[in-house]
């Protein structure tokens, strides 16, 4: 194991072939031929972890995460929190609920508070810009995260730089808060750059279009992290619809059995295209499903960024200490269309929209920070100008960005091009030349 850790060079540094960009498959690229693996504690041939292994009894012997922590209450590792009342730190009017469970995130200093609110404001501004750019024909499609900013920024803020994010496709806020340049995201939706630029550097996987598949990838990545004994946690971000996929069930089950360091975050935004939550499940809450997997399940107000930050931090701490995976349900609402190709008036009414608009996550947090004296006109102006600049930057970079060369079509199929693809490339070049002449 020591040998592997050395070879991948610890956090962040990844082995790469000379002259190539580091990519996913190479992260654990040395595992196949690493002798050190055979005797490692996670050796698959030894049948995987067993009761008595350091982390399998996480609930009873695992870490204490403070009062009201994940293991508390039930005496098993299947603790449920927030299923009667979603955990909430801020009331919709921005006043503290006084809830001690989770404890108020006192660890956040004024600067972090300002950063989180700025990230939320920036997310909303860039999100709106991307919708506009699609309407103007600059992007083929876009999936707006309007209304989900607290859930997304709260989770990302609780993650460390070395942790890994496996997003679905609606996570602009998580990406922004992790420091991914939104231009890279916009270029992806434009089709100018496959899969989004600047993700790997921020330990973020490409977005996942096959709903639910990223949960499996995250679980497997986390298995690798465990085998590597790396100090990283993997976060899978999925939707309420995704939770109905067999893939997600299998990912949760396997992650739980192997006690891998993986946090499953479900943004329960109430809708999967036109299908409401009640068609997805009969479970009282999505967090309840954790019970069957034997892992902690937490339900929290996802429009409350402080509650989200608190429970995500708690969960990540628990996971880092070897407690195994956690299922976190964030209650929020998709205020925009499913994507720019959708017309939600066909399946939902204004009343619902208004109800959720009144629970706006940005207003709530802003009111709180103003009351705390951390946010004022000056901060508001600065955040607005940061957001406007980001949006203008995205627009400037994206508008009429050059199309990638057509023969680049064949570049990314295999690392080493095949004869057959070379033949097809030559054929396309001939056809293009003929069309030009």
């Amino acid at each position: 194991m020591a040998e592997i850790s050395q070879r991948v060079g610890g956090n962040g540094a990844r082995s790469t072939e000379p002259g190539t960009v580091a990519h996913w498959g190479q992260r654990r690229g040395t595992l196949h031929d690493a002798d050190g693996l055979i005797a490692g504690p996670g050796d698959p041939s030894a049948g995987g972890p067993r009761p008595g292994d350091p982390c399998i009894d996480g609930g009873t012997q695992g870490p204490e995460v403070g009062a009201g922590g994940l293991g508390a209450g039930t005496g098993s590792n299947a603790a449920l929190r927030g299923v009667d009342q979603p955990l909430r730190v801020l009331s919709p009017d921005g006043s503290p609920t006084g809830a001690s469970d989770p404890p108020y995130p006192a660890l956040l200093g004024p600067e972090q508070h300002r950063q989180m609110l700025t990230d939320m404001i920036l997310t909303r501004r860039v999100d709106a810009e991307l919708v506009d750019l699609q309407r103007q024909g600059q992007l083929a499609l876009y999936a707006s995260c309007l209304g989900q900013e607290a859930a997304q920024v709260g989770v990302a803020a609780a993650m460390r730089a070395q942790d890994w994010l496996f997003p679905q496709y609606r996570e602009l806020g998580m990406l922004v808060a992790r420091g991914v340049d939104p231009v890279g995201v916009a270029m992806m939706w434009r089709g100018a750059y496959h899969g989004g630029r600047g993700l790997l550097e921020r330990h973020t996987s490409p977005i996942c279009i096959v709903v639910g598949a990223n949960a499996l990838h995250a679980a497997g990545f986390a298995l690798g992290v465990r085998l590597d004994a790396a100090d990283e946690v993997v976060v899978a971000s999925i939707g309420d619809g995704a939770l109905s996929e067999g893939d997600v069930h299998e990912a949760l089950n396997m992650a739980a059995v192997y006690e891998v360091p993986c946090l499953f975050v479900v943004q329960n935004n109430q809708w999967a295209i036109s299908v409401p939550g009640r068609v997805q499940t009969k479970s009282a809450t999505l967090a309840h499903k954790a019970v069957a997997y034997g892992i902690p399940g937490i339900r929290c107000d996802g429009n409350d960024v402080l509650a989200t930050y608190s429970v995500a931090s708690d969960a990540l701490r628990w996971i880092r200490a070897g407690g195994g995976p956690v299922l976190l349900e964030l209650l929020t609402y998709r205020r925009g269309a499913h994507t720019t190709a959708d017309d939600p008036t066909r399946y939902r009414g204004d009343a619902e929209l208004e109800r959720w608009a009144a629970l706006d996550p940005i207003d709530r947090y802003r009111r709180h920070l103003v009351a705390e004296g951390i946010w004022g006109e000056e901060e508001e102006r600065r955040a607005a100008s940061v957001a406007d600049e980001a949006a203008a930057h995205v627009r400037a970079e994206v508008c009429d960005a050059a199309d990638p060369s057509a023969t680049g079509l064949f570049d990314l199929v295999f690392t080493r091009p095949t004869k057959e693809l070379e033949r097809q490339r030559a054929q396309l070049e001939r056809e293009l030349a003929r069309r030009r002449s």
Partner: protein
Amino acid sequence: MTTTTYRQAMREALRDALRRDERVFLMGEDVGRYGGCYAVSLGLLEEFGPQRIIDTPLSESAFVGAGIGAALGGMRPIVEIMTVNFSLLALDQIVNNAATLRHMSGGQFNVPLVIRMTTGAGRQLAAQHSHSLEGWYAHVPGLRILAPATVQDARGMLWPALCDPDPVLVFEHGLLYNAEGELAADAPVVDLTTAAVRRPGTDVTLLAYGGTLRTALAAADDLAGEGTSAEVLDLRSLRPLDTATIVASVQHTHRAVVVDEGWRSGSLSAEVSARITEEAFYDLDAPVARVCAAEVPVPYAKHLEEAALPSPGAVVEAVHHMAA
């Protein structure tokens, strides 16, 4: 005769089947209130109610498996899968179960299930919504594979598919939904076993199906301008293939170009080409040619996607190449 779209024709076929037989029901993601991802089932929930137009959880394997179960019990389910790409989450149910249960049960059970799905590219939906994998399904014994390419087939294939005691997969090319055509009020039930000559010709046979029928017809127009008479054959049924009609056409034109939006290696176009070689080799004046999608994941960027797909120009070039 009325002018109607492929989408409306398909909807009319669904409505007709739901009216004719109480055992018929439709199930899939967003098929109810939303009217289906491609608006095929729009209005059917209102007309037939939630017992028969069923929105499912986001669980492809579950609702295809449930369709099999209902069919085993004598119902006549129609399952809609959003795209062929997502049918892969139900591949085990389709290939290991629907296609084998008659065999595995010694003939005690059969699976009268119809599965409809969208296939094909051209709508900037990227590599996980755009592939043409119907050729894979056509590899599997126990399944009937249909590819309606015209408004008439969209209207006429569903009912005979439902009457088939075995599983039938219907592939609807996404670019066809808005295509228009003429439909007689009393349109006859179509047969599911034969290929159709969509345009007679004498110099070369263009073999196409589903989305590529339009490509082949456009190429035939261009070729006619040059004085080459192309016959266009619509395969219609991908399994079983109507080899007799294919061979008869090639025997008459002596040249063949297969036009397929699937990838060429190990493909349906390879199968068609092999059958021509097996049964009409001595009638050929030139090797069989194929125009297929570039062997890359279908790209999202518009110009890249266009470059990856079979075009009328590429078909014309293939014909020129044969004549040279």
